[in-house]
């Protein structure tokens, strides 16, 4: 009998993923014994798990190592992105319980599913094998399909889940076909080996590899909601339960970018000219479509959906540059985007009440005076989204655009600035409603639970501190780029 030689596994590389998976599975079991009204405690348990995971991440900082014969790697890039995922997951979990209680769908499974989604994202960020990346993406997607349709009583939520599932499966087809073509052209699925194989002129001139790259790009473009693969976003974001929308608009987007960056920057740098011209077009299209359509929206969740499309466009600007400044800009921006977007969604949840989401702009009339603290918090988030200094959004945007300029894409930066100028209009409109309209409601149903307060404080700190003193985080981001 022949023995199988198992290669070095190096479990410590996937320690964070393992911790989080174990926590998720434990929660599934604990869930059975928890009464319906107390499901919120599961949330706190998951946050404890997330904190432990976060701690386990910090150990690996600065000492990159790979494992499972090159299927995963734990480098600074992955760790930074995993930090973003964990922060966004923790913040979304903080605002989940109150919402689900209110809507009467507080099933405890929501927390394990969110954690599974996070595990999927983490695998995407650290996957160095197309297989790992793909499976991470699937774990993420499957959990999200369920989460989007989590509010079973609501038709819109059902519709969101189904739409997301159908279109997600459709785009997965392209992604997988692209991976297969890449495998055919290079004979491997490991990103490093793909890069090595693509060094040879015969491989890099192979049309199959170009097609593979393009199809993978479209698959990732779907995940990050870049035009023209963005159309699912508004419907799904609007229909999904709001905390899930908050989670979906940040984490999966960041994960999509993490995998996208790794595949293009590490595996296919030979095609830099091709993919940067493709991303150039996608960036312009995405920013413009996102911003211009957002101008028209009356529903604030939909507006933020389009705004999140536009933000994917800004990040694509930094991606197009493909240089150190642009890439570190992406990392920085993604992190600050997590804080500002989830913060904004937290306020949106508070404005709504059972059955009435109160998502129309008119529902915000006079809100700023009835709840000054929440009003100010919302303004901070909106200003950051609009990229007005000194919020983090401004620094991040500045970074992305200067990356593009350093790479010589001055027109792209100009289009970006133009877009960002246009975007102020719709963010401002919310503020106009909050402050310059007579209140029609007294907003007495707004109940600030401790979890929300913590979430909002973290969000404000996460928006303002990197905005005023971005030094530390930028340094981390610069150490975390892939080159």
């Amino acid at each position: 009998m022949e023995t199988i030689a198992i290669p070095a596994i190096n479990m410590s590389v996937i320690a964070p993923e393992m911790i989080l998976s174990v926590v998720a599975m434990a929660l599934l079991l604990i869930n059975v014994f928890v009464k319906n009204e107390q499901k919120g405690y599961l949330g706190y348990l998951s946050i404890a798990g997330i904190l432990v995971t976060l701690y386990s991440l910090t150990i690996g900082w600065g000492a990159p190592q790979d494992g499972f014969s090159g299927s995963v790697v734990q480098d600074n890039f992955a760790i930074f992105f995993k930090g973003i995922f964990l922060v966004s997951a923790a913040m979304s979990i903080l605002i989940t319980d109150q919402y689900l209680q209110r809507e009467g769908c507080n099933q405890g499974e929501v927390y394990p599913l969110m954690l599974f989604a996070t595990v999927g994202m983490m695998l995407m960020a650290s996957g160095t094998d197309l297989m790992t990346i793909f499976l991470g993406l699937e774990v993420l997607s499957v959990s999200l399909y369920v989460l989007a349709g989590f509010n079973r009583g609501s038709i819109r939520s059902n519709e969101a889940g189904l739409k997301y599932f159908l279109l997600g499966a459709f785009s997965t087809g392209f992604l997988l076909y692209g991976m297969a073509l890449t495998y055919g052209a290079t004979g491997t699925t490991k990103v490093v080996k793909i890069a090595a194989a693509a060094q040879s002129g015969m491989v890099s001139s192979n049309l199959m590899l170009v097609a593979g790259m393009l199809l993978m790009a479209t698959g990732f473009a779907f995940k990050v909601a870049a035009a023209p693969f963005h159309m699912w976003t508004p419907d799904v974001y609007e229909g999904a339960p709001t905390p899930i929308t908050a989670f979906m608009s940040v984490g999966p987007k960041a994960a999509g970018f993490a995998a996208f960056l790794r595949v293009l920057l590490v595996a296919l740098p030979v095609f830099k000219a091709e993919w940067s011209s493709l991303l150039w077009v996608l960036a312009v299209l995405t920013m413009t479509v996102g911003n211009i359509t957002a101008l028209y929206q009356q529903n604030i969740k939909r507006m933020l959906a389009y705004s999140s499309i536009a933000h994917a466009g800004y990040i694509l600007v930094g991606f197009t540059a493909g240089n150190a400044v642009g890439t570190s800009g992406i990392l920085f921006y993604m992190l600050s985007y997590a804080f500002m977007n989830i913060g904004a969604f937290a306020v949106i949840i508070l404005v709504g009440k059972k059955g009435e989401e109160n998502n129309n702009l008119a529902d915000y009339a006079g809100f700023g005076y009835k709840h000054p603290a929440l009003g100010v918090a919302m303004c901070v988030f909106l200003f950051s989204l609009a990229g007005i200094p000194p919020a983090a959004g401004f620094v991040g945007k500045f970074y992305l655009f200067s990356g593009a300029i350093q790479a010589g894409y001055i027109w792209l930066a100009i289009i970006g600035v133009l877009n960002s100028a246009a975007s102020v209009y719709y963010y401002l409109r919310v503020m106009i409603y909050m402050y310059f309209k007579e209140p029609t409601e007294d907003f007495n149903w707004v109940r600030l639970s401790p979890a929300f307060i913590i979430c909002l404080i973290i969000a404000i700190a996460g928006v303002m501190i990197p905005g005023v003193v971005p030094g530390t985080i930028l340094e981390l981001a610069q150490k975390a780029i892939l080159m």
Partner: protein
Amino acid sequence: MLDNVWLIPLFPLIGFLINGLFGKKIKNEGVIGGIGTLAIFCSFLVSCGILMQLVGLPAEQRVFEKVIFPWIHAGNFKADMAFLVDPLSAVMIMVVTGVGTLIHLYSIGYMHGEEGFYRFFAYLNLFCMSMLLLVLGANMLVMFIGWEGVGLCSYLLIGYYFEKKSAGDAAKKAFVMNRVGDFGFLIGLFTLFWWFGSNHNIWTINFMEIKAASHLLPYGGVVTVATLCFFLGATGKSAQIPLYTWLPDAMEGPTPVSALIHAATMVTAGVYMIGRMSFVFIKAPETMMVVAVVGAATALFAATIGTAQNDIKRVLAYSTVSQLGFMFIAMGVGAFTGGIFHLMTHAFFKACMFLGSGSVIHAMHHALHHGHLHDDPQDMRNMGGLRKAMPITFLTFFVSTFAIAGIPPLSGFFSKDEILWQAFSNPYHGDLNKVVWALGCIAACFTAFYMFRLVFMTFFGECRINPKVKDHLHESPLVITIPLMVLGVLAAVGGFIGVPKLIGILPNYFEHWLEPVFELANEYGKQYAHMHEHSHSLEWGLMGLSVVIAAIGIFIAFTMYMANKSLPEKFTSAFPGLYRAVYNKWYIDELYDFVFVNPCKSLGNLLWKGFDVVIVDGVVNGVAKLVMAFSAGLKGLQSGYVHNYAMGMALGVVVIIAFYVFR
């Protein structure tokens, strides 16, 4: 002291935090107003200390950069949170904190009893902080933060009476127009940054570093593009053609706001920015020409409109636009010192006039309120003869009016004359200079005319206010009149620090002071300028001419708005030549109406209604409509059907593959 420059913006920030966070709890207006005023006053003291120290240094050492903390470091690009103290920023911080302190003090009286008193002071302090960041910023990014900050505060303050729809609309208009300008600013910044970086590997946005490297910049070309973008930013902030329409609307805000933001400080940011980057602007002769022509056009254009307005604050608003035009003329013809000088004197006299008008409105409001009347307290047709009831307000306003009209030896005379003389004599744009000068002269004439029209209608003649409440018109309290008096004195004597060399009774302190800042720009300018020698007699002649022009304006205003009213006897005796005209007032009135007032009014109306409403607003709304239509179209694509979405995605894939595979 120089090391403590960070204190200057810090004090207003503290004031903002205290009033913003606890103002609602404090309730006591004296305490709130006191904190706000004290905060900016402390900044003023620090500014004075810095100025003193700068004065003590030799001229070439008067540049100091203080890094507060490292801010953005990315590869070879670096932007610190840093402040730059040099003679130019010293002038600006003195104006901002000095005038700011007076206006804060004034606001305690003016805003008395208003709901949201604390909010007002918090915003005011926040504004001052942003403005100080703007003028102290050592790189374009810090300046941009201040630039955005003042825009935001302006928005908050214009919309202070948010329950009024017009106030909300005006605030929105101001914000949107400013954003158009900000866009220009950012593009200019990026262009310059990119050019230096890609051609010389100098990735910087620091003013001093750009200055040190400015010899590398070519004349024209990319510099023209960058400076035109910056200038677009300046037109937004400083209300020049074509982005000026927000400023008159901004008068919806409380009067101290109009005085501080829309006359003395924020609107001058564009002028300051050009001054700060004079060494870049001068390298683009085309841009300089555009600046000068736009400035001249705005100066004249706004002045004509000012003649047709009846709202006291609107007259002042158009006057501000017009005076900013003068400053841009100065910048455009390379007379940077003159522009900054006019900026300073204008801050004095215009702040004084705005506060004076506020005092009048305050008194009118109280009187009308007392009689339960609903007349418009800002309409000059309801005023008249107020000088007896409000002597201090009248006197300070009168002095400032003389100053703005350019009557020697008041401050406005020196600065305006300097600009007009430089426009005439500076060698940059050939014969175009003379055109700019001529436009400026006509605008000066109009200025004198409409300002005196305002004074005559408001303070002279018989009281047109309802007799019932006439006795309730009172002078404003001391807290309002003290700032007026201080500003009045400054408006009167402020010009003496910049007496032209020609007159020579005093050295031109101001020019010497700013010389090191603009030295380099003047150096570059010589590269393409064709120097002419001008005789002293010509300069004297033009100086005389500008006084005569002002006098003509005053004279016309006088005949039109005094002569047909029941004139006090002393005026008839003071101007005997007019006596017959007064005597025959009906036909002179007709004649003037026919020859001057009607055409002027209709021209003003035409420009105001025609150009403003149809063209400028039309273009702005048109663009907005176009975008909205596009947006609606895109929204139509969002049908909600999954198969449509899938089709969109498939089409996207097809197009992408087609592009790269069929190449």
